[in-house]
C-alpha cells in the first residue's frame, strides 16, 4: 500500500471510529478531535485501532498508542508505518 495523503488517512480513521460508534456519523470529526472526548470505553478504542490496522494494512504496536491522543497523531503514526512498509522490499 502506498503512502497516503493526510485526507485519505483521516478519512480512514473517521470510518474506523464510525464503525465502532455509529452515532459519530452525526458528529463533525477533525484532525484535532481528541479520542478521549468521544465517550469510547477501552475495548471500543482497541477496536478502533483494530479497524485502522485492517484498513491500512499496518501493525500498530502498543507503545505507539501512547501518542494516539488525536486523529492527527494517529494519522502520523499510520503514515510512518505505511512509509516504512513501502521503503522495505515486499515480503
Amino acid at each position: 500500500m502506498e503512502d497516503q495523503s493526510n485526507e485519505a488517512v483521516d478519512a480512514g480513521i473517521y470510518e474506523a471510529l464510525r464503525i465502532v460508534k455509529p452515532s459519530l456519523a452525526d458528529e463533525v470529526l477533525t484532525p484535532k478531535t481528541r479520542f478521549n472526548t468521544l465517550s469510547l470505553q477501552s475495548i471500543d478504542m482497541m477496536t478502533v485501532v483494530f479497524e485502522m490496522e485492517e484498513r491500512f494494512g499496518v501493525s500498530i504496536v502498543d507503545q505507539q498508542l501512547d501518542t494516539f491522543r488525536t486523529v492527527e497523531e494517529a494519522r502520523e503514526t499510520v503514515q510512518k508505518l505505511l512509509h516504512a512498509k513501502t521503503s522495505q522490499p515486499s515480503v
Partner: protein
Amino acid sequence: MTRRVVVTGIGCVSSLGVGTSALWEGLVRARTAITPTRLVQAGLEVTLPAAPVTGFVPLDHFTADELPMRDAFAQYAVVAAREAMRDAGLGRGETIPGDTAVVLGSGGGGEHTREEAAVRLFGERKLRCSPMLVPKTNNQAAVGFVSMEFQVTGPSFVISTGCAAATHAIAQAFHMIRHGVVRRAITGGSEAPVALSVFQAFDAARVLSHTTCRPFSRERDGMVIGEGGGILVLEELESARKRGAFIYAEVLGAGMSADASSSVYPREQGPAQAIAMALREARLNADQIDYINAHGTGTQVNDRVETMAIKLAFGEHARELTVSSTKSLHGHTFGGAGGIETVATLLALKHGVAPPTVNYLGPDADCDLDYAPNDPKPRRIDVALKQSFAFGGLNAVLVLRRDVVQ
C-alpha cells in the same frame, strides 16, 4: 426458614414474535414457526428447518452505538428482560440493587459473532481478529447488559448447561430467594444459534431433523434449532404482595440431577430423579401435577426416554397428565429453551389451556401419553412442571402452581 417465591413478570422473544402475547397467540393458533431456512456463509450454504426469531428489528430496541458490542443472544436477553420487568411493574431504580440477582442461561454465547470472526480468520485467512470477539461471544455478556440496564449489583452469573441452561438458571435463582440470599431475581435464558456452523455441528452429530420437529410422534426424526430468549422476574412472596404485584404462579420446587451415563444419550433415571426431587421440595404428590411442558426435542431417543422418565416418576398418573412440547412451534432454543418454555408454562397456567404439540402424525410404540396433539387443550391446570434435559445428562425440573395457597 425458607421463603416463598413467586413469578411476577414474564418476557419473551421467539420465532413466534417479540413479546409474550405473540408467543401465546402462536401457541394457541397451533401454527409452527419452523420453516426451511437457508444459511449462507463464506461460500458455504445449508438449508435446514429452523425457527429463527421474527419481527425483531435491533434498532427498535438498541441505539446504533449499542449494537456493535451486543451479539443477538445478548440482545434477546435484554429485550425479554425489559418486557418482564415492565410486566412486573418494576422500573430501573426499583430493583433493590444489591438484593436482586441476575441468573441467566446460555449454551454457546455469541455464535454469530464467533462465526463472523472464524470466517475472517479461517476463510479469508486474515491475520487479525477484532478485540470485540471476547466480550461479544462470552456467555457473560447477557448478564452484564441486563445488570447494567437495571442497575443490579447483586449476584449475577450465567449457567451454561446447553439445553437445560435456563431451567438450571431459574432453579438457582429460585433457591437464592428461597434461602434469603436475595429478594428478587431476573432469570431465564437466551440463545442465537441459527448460524451455519452451529447447524453443521449438530447435523454432524445426526440430531437434526431435515423435515420438522415432531415431538413424541411417529416418524419423528430430530430436533430443529430455534432462537430467542425467555425471562422471568422472581420475587419473594411477601414483597410481591406488599406492592400488589400480579402473581403468575408460585415456584414450589426445583430439582436437579445428573444421569452420569452418556454425553449424548439420556437415561430415564436421571430425569425421574430430578422430577422426584422437585416434587419433594414442593411437598406435592405426583398426582397433583396437571401439565408438563416437556423437553420434547423430537429426537427418537429423547422423546422415548422422556416418556419413560415421566412414567417412572408418575406411575399411573402419567395417563392423566397432559404433556406437550412447545419446541414443535418455536424450535429448540438451547440456552433460551428453559426461559421461553417456562413462560409458555406460566401462560398455560394463566389461561387454563395446554399448548399443543404440533406436527404430530400419530402415536408410536414408545410414546403413548396425552401430548395435546396438534390442538391446544383447555383443561384444569393448577400445577405444572417444566423439565429440561441437557447433553451430558444434566437435568433440571421446576414445579409451578398458579394459586398461592396458604
